[in-house]
Every structure is written in C-alpha cells, then in structure tokens.
C-alpha cells in the first residue's frame, strides 16, 4: 500500500489565499437553493452536447447567470446566452443586456423572428396573444433549431403559476418543442434522466424551487446588478384597462385624449413594454422592494398582461413551446 506524504502547504501555494466563504453571508435556505441550482447546471453541461442559457434580462435571469458563473468557476461559462428579442423590450433592458455581456465577457446570441417582423407582427397591431406566439414562442423554436441546442436553461420558477408548479426541473420537449404535461418523467432524488433522442431537447429550470422572495434576497446578498426598471422612478405612464403602461418610445399609439403622465412606478416583471404593467411604488432600493413584496396582496404575474388571455393560458402556451 503506497503512502503519500505530502507537504501540501508548500506544494499548493494558493492555499494562503484561502478566505472564509463569501457565501456564508447567505442564509441557509438560499445556500441550499444555490447548491441545488449549481448541481442541476453541472448535470446539463456534463450530459448534453450543446446547451444554452435563455437570458431574458430580468431578475431571475440575473440570479441564474450569477449561479452559473459560480458553478463553473474558474472556467468561463461553458455555454452561450440566448436572448429572444421581440424588438419591443424596454430600451433600458437592451442596454443592460449589452452592458452585462460586455462586463462579464459572455457569448451572447440574439435572435429575432425576422419573418414575423416582416409580417408586421407587434403587440400593438396584433394583440398580445399573436405577438407572443409569433415573436416569442416561434422565435424561440427558430433559435433552438438554428443553433441545434439540445438543452436550454430557463429561469422559470414553480411558484409563478399553477401549471409551472407541476413542471419538471428537466422538462422534456419533443422534436416539435411540445410539452406533454400528462407524460412527464418522474424526478426522484437528484437523479435526473437526461436521455433524449435525436432532435428532441430538454428545457431545464435550475430555479424551480425558488420563490420571488428568494430571488430578491439572493440578489441583495450577492449584490447582483439588475435592470433599473425594477426600482421606483418617475416614468411616463398611460392607464389602460386598469394597467399602467409605460410609454417607452413613440411606437405606442396614444388613443384620443390619452396623455402620458409622469408617475412614480416600478416593474415587478419585465417583458415587452406595451404588455407589461407597472405598479405605483416608492421602492427605490432592494430593501424597499423586499419590504414591499412582503406586504403586497398582488401576485407577481399580475403585471403580465399575456396571462389573462384565457383560462389555463400558460399551460396552453407551454404545450406549444413557450418557455
């Protein structure tokens, strides 16, 4: 039996640099959630040929990106980011996206459904249902096919919506990107079945077990930059059917008599600006946001105008390939 006698203190010079864990500032439940997400990401990178991370620029994407950087440190991110751009995102989102990619030296892919653009699809002209179908769902499918990604990370959480609550962490998609909620693979322990056939793909949700509050507490503890739209500020607003819509550029046609008012608002979720409702708020810091959330009686998706299209609308979209 060989015996190793190692003076590892001298063999391994970087030990002297060891610091107490920065993550120790994380409360236990966030440490657990972070480790779980890292575990999931490492499974994907080990078992798939060509993964990608869907980057939607929002707070969940920001948290997910930070976790990914930790998971593979000190190696660079072993997959690119993909943003499906409908061309109707808030301008501040696009600026934040480009700044983030540059600051972190990331590979960022941007895809827009050009054919949809040519057909003149927009949230204003086509309504939210058609716009989402063509510019988000179809566009995503195009992008996944174009680069032949076999696994795509998404930042969705199970607490967002009822049909999400039953989606797997590894969510299998047919070659046509369809989700079959009646035929999902059971997920036991941390043993994820990652097997797919040629042409099929997997959507993977590392933040499945996080809540909205968890995400904000993580962003605060880790000091992760987020789009400024989450913080309250005077913004030009028109009120439509009870929703506060921000006039982000001159593409939003104003109805007769409609005049943007400067109101102190912020956004709980971010999407296409004509489809995203603001809330009146004074929350200007992350601490404020967390305090506001604790006392809120409105759910996060209340600002999402697309969910109200019809009953079970999220489930329907997901079956068709929406994230």
């Amino acid at each position, binding site marked *: 039996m060989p015996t190793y006698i190692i003076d590892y203190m001298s063999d391994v010079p970087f030990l002297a640099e*060891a610091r107490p*864990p920065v993550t120790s500032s994380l409360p236990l439940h966030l440490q657990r959630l972070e480790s779980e997400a890292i575990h999931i990401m490492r499974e994907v990178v080990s078992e798939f040929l060509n993964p990608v991370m869907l980057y939607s620029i929002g707070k969940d994407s920001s948290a997910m990106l930070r976790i990914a950087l930790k998971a593979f440190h000190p190696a660079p991110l072993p997959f690119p980011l993909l943003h499906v751009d409908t061309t109707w995102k808030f301008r501040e989102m696009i600026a934040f996206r480009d700044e983030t990619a540059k600051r972190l030296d990331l590979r960022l892919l941007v895809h827009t459904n050009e054919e949809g653009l040519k057909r003149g699809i927009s949230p204003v002209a086509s309504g939210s249902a058609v716009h989402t179908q063509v510019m988000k769902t179809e566009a995503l499918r195009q992008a996944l096919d174009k680069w032949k990604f076999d696994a795509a990370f998404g930042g969705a959480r199970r607490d967002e919506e009822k049909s999400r609550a039953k989606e797997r962490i590894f969510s299998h998609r047919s070659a046509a990107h369809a989700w079959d909620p009646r035929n999902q693979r059971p997920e036991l322990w941390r043993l994820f079945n990652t*097997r797919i056939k040629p042409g099929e793909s997997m959507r993977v949700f590392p933040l499945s077990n996080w809540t909205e509050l968890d995400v904000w507490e993580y962003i605060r503890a880790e000091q992760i930059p987020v789009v400024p739209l989450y913080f309250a500020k005077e913004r030009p607003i028109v009120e439509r059917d009870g929703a506060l819509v921000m006039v982000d550029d001159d593409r939003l046609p104003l109805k007769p008599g409609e005049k943007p008012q400067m109101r102190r608002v912020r956004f709980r979720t971010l999407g296409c600006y004509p489809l995203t409702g603001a809330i009146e708020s004074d929350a200007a810091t992350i601490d404020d946001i967390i305090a506001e959330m604790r006392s809120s009686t409105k759910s996060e998706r209340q600002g999402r105008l697309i969910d109200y299209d019809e009953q079970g609308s999220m489930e329907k979209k997901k079956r068709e390939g929406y994230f």
Partner: protein
Amino acid sequence: MNAPAFRASPLPTLRLLTCGSVDDGKSTLIGRLLFEQKLIYDDQLSALERDSKKHGTTGEEIDFALLVDGLEAEREQGITIDVAYRYFATPARSFIVADTPGHEQYTRNMATGASNADLAIILVDARKGLLTQTFRHSFIVSLLGIRHVVLAVNKIDLVDFRQQVFSEIADGFAEFAKPLGFHVIKAIPISARYGDNVSSKSERTPWYEGPHLLEFLERVEVEDESRAAPFRMVVQWVNRPHLDFRGFAGSIASGSVRRGDDIVVAASGRRSKVARVLFGGEDVQEASAGDAVTLTLADEIDVARGDVFSSPDSRPEVADQFAAHLIWMSGENLLPGRSYLLKIGAKLTPATVTELRHRVDVNTLEKLAGKTLALNEVGFCNLATTMPVAFDPYAANHQTGAFILIDRYTNETAAAGLIAHGLRRATNVHLQDLAVTRQARARLKHQRAAILWFTGLSGAGKSTIANLVEAKLHARGVHTTMLDGDNVRHGLNRDLGFTAADRVENIRRVAEVARLMTDAGLIVLCSFISPFRAERQLARELAAADEFLEIFVDAPLDVVMARDPKGLYKRALAGEIKNFTGVDQAYERPESPEITLRSAQDSADALADQVVDELAKRRFIDLL
C-alpha cells in the same frame, strides 16, 4: 443601511409531502395553509372565486383545492394527477410542499414526492378512519426513508369534534406503523375546510392539547443525518480550464470535507489529499452535505464523472451486484434479464435485474411471488451492473443508495431503486495484494478455513450441537470461532429487530463477519435460525467457493414446541412475540444442505461427531 432582514430561519427549509386519497382533503389543506398565511394574492383569489363557480365542489364557498390543482385536466376531473410543489414561508421557517395523488395507480408520483421530503403529512378522513390506502401511503413513506410523520385526522367537524373518534384513529395508526420505523408520529385533529387546528388552535377541540399543524411544522426538527454520515461526494464534472487547474465539481452527498483531508476514490481505491475546497467560486476551509463544491487534489490521480470520493476510513461498497427495492414507474413491465440503463449518482451503466426475489403488496406488505413488476408495483430484486458501482445502503445514505433505471429504447424513467446491500464481496476496494494470503494463514494452522452454517428452528439444537462441535475441534488443535444468533444480537446487530428486512440484514452482517474470519484461516461456526433460503444463499455467495457448509438441524415443529427451552414458543403463540419463525413467520427448509442432522432422533453428542467426521472427510481438518 440596516443589516439584511432575512427571514429568521434557525431551522432549515422543511420539505414535506402530503399524502391522502382523492377525497381526504389534501389539496384543500394546502390551499387553506396558503390562504391563512396570506399567501394568496388578490388576483389569484379572484381567479379562484371564478374557478370555484365553474369547477368547484363547495357550492358558494371558495374551493381551496382549485388553488393547487394546476393542470386543466385535473381541474376538470377534480383530481390531482401529478406531483405539484408549493412554497410558503412563515417568519419561523420556509416550506416546500410536494402535493401528490394518493390513489394506488399513482404510487410512482407519491414515491417521487417522498424522495426529497423530510416529513410526511398523512391525511385520514375522520369519518372513514384508517383505510388500506393509509397503510399504502405509510409504507411508501417509510420505504423512501421518511422518519417524521404527521397523521392529520381531517374532517373532524363531520364527526362532531369527538375525541373518541380521533383517539381510536391515532391509536390504531400507532399500532400498525410499528414495523415502519418512524421516529416521530404526531396525530392532529383538523378540519382543512374550516381551518380547525391548521394554523391556529381550534376551540372546538378543547380536548386536544397539542400544537396546531403549522406550529408543529415550524418547530419539528428533522435531524440532518446526512451531515453526520461519512464523507461522500459524487464527481459530476471535471473542471479543467487550463493546465494549472484541475478541479472536481460535485455535490457533497454526506459528511464534510476540509482542506488537507485524505480522500479515496471508491471504485479505484486511489488516494490523495484535498488541496482546495471551492464553494461558490471562493476558497473555503470546509464544506458539508448539500454544498455544491469543486475540490482540487494534491496528486494527479485518475478521476472521472461518476466517481465517488469518500473518507478512507469509511468507504462505500463497490460491487457489480446488489439487492434493491424497485418501484416500477413505466407502463411497460419489468423484464428480468433485459438491459436497462442504471443511473446512480453521476454514473450511468447498463444493468439487468437478475432476479425478482419477491413483489411487495403495497397495501398489506405481504411478499408475493412474481415474475415481473407492473406500473406502480414494488419489488425486491437482485441487479447486476456492467461496471462496478460505488454505493451505500439506502437506509444509510439516500444520495448514494438511490438509483433510477432508464428504458434504453424509450428513454423513460422505468424505475426508482433503493439499494439494500451488495451481493458480492466488494473486491474492487481492496486492491492491495495481501502479502500473507488466506490460504497461508490457514496452512499455518494445519486446516482449511470454513463456515459451518447451522440453520433450523428455534429450539432445534443448533447452538448445543455447534458448541459441542467447537469443543471437539478445539480438543484436536483446530482454530475455531463461534458466531451465535443471540450473542451477535447483543452487540454487532443490536440495532436490528425481527422483521423480515432486519433478519436479512442480520444474516448479511453475520455472513460478512464470518467471511472475514475465514480470511484469518479460522473455521467459523455460525448458529442462526436464518429462515429464508435467499439469505442463506447470500451467505453462501459471500463465502469463498467450497468453504461454506450448510448444516440443517432438522427437528419437527411439534418437537421443538414441546422442548421450548427458552419459553419463546409459548410467548409467540400468546402473541407476545411477533415474527417468530414457525409461528407467524415461515421457515424455508434447505433444499440441498451439505449436512442434515436429525436432532429428534440422535443425541447432540452423536450429531456433533457426525459434523467433525464430515469435516475430516472433506479435508478441512487433518484425519486423526
């Protein structure tokens, strides 16, 4: 800026599973918990009111079940089909609730929910009391290793809040849960629909003095056994960004690891020291169970995805054959002999089920013979893998003792597996050649090592004969040792009872010890009732070829009952002892023992001589 106002959570997140059948009010209970924690937002509540009118079953009142039954098909059929996860937090603790269907056809979903839960809430309808399904739920919960159970006696309002109804159910449950190994069983009378004892104490059950459900959940401590267990880490990914860094990324399954610790790669037996522990991208001194880390080692040793790091003094088993419980999850039945993919930790290997030892009736726990397992059936099987895998028994370590089987053609997850024990001696971990061989040790004693396995009913005369055999061998200068059922149970196996499962483990341990003693060249006399053929076969398989002699001490049941030297039959017949061989547990007679001793006919001394003669004849000891 103030200090971060994190939720005060001295206790870790509690992951719990709710089980109950279609009408027990499971979804209603979860809906009620969320509602009372003000976790249902206005917009959700208005959707709920709309849904209640459309699909609800509660008339004008809000149907809380609709809040959690997510998928459209479920809302229409009024049943919960899948596993749904709910999240809520109180100032004291955060919770993850797995809501699973309770019907027999959804055993697989319940097992899925249970696999990651610390605690189970088992719902019972107070009007109906304990049902077959209650037993099924409890068994699955127990099989998956959950040790904390809340028995929620629901709809207590419909039995007029009567204490007697509650007590009868609670007592009955405590009785039938005895063999299931729960550490904590808390019975609480509740009404999910009206909120009694859900998150506040009900005035309508003044006779109930315990905590309400939420209070109990907030306070219950589910001790983190995985932290105290020996160090295990499954390598998921080798991080090699450049030539100067080679890190092994993975999650710590159990125990903890510090810089400078010795570690060993379980399958290859290669050793090294931990040079760095990276956690969250930073160097740390120590990390423990649950942490996703990256380790670097002091030596360049061969490590790949799927390898298991462990502490050198407590290594996992490494084997290519083991026995395990399988929960079948596919519509296509198990085919013994067919090749499946087995995923354990981060390792994927082809595997076959070599033998279905028995099926388990999930409603009665009865062992049934069978050739196959269908969807939602549970069985105990022997499996063989193409490559040896490192594992621990599931009971000792959930992360390293669990696996899934994947259908190679459809890619479906076909089964969940829980390893009971290895079937062959773990040869791969002991790679070092022993300079002094077992044969050399035995030769010095002028004998060949052997295991003399005395089996038979209690009172048949096993120990008496074995003692005489040993005395006679000793007188001839033969080196022996004795493993006796009663004695072993005072020490090595004092944690085991007399259930079928414990008897298997009892025999497995004894067989392992006997095998080690034969390595020392001894003749080992083992005296155990060992009622099951399969376990005697296991003991035989663990021993080296030709070194195992099964000695059947054959005495008719009426004779041993009449003898009853320890008064045990009398007590068993009176119902004071359960699982007593010959009374309420079968003794499977050996089919072809090396030696049969008829103790009703011959004296113990004569029978002992018969054994010694046989040993001489087989050249285990020198002829005189």
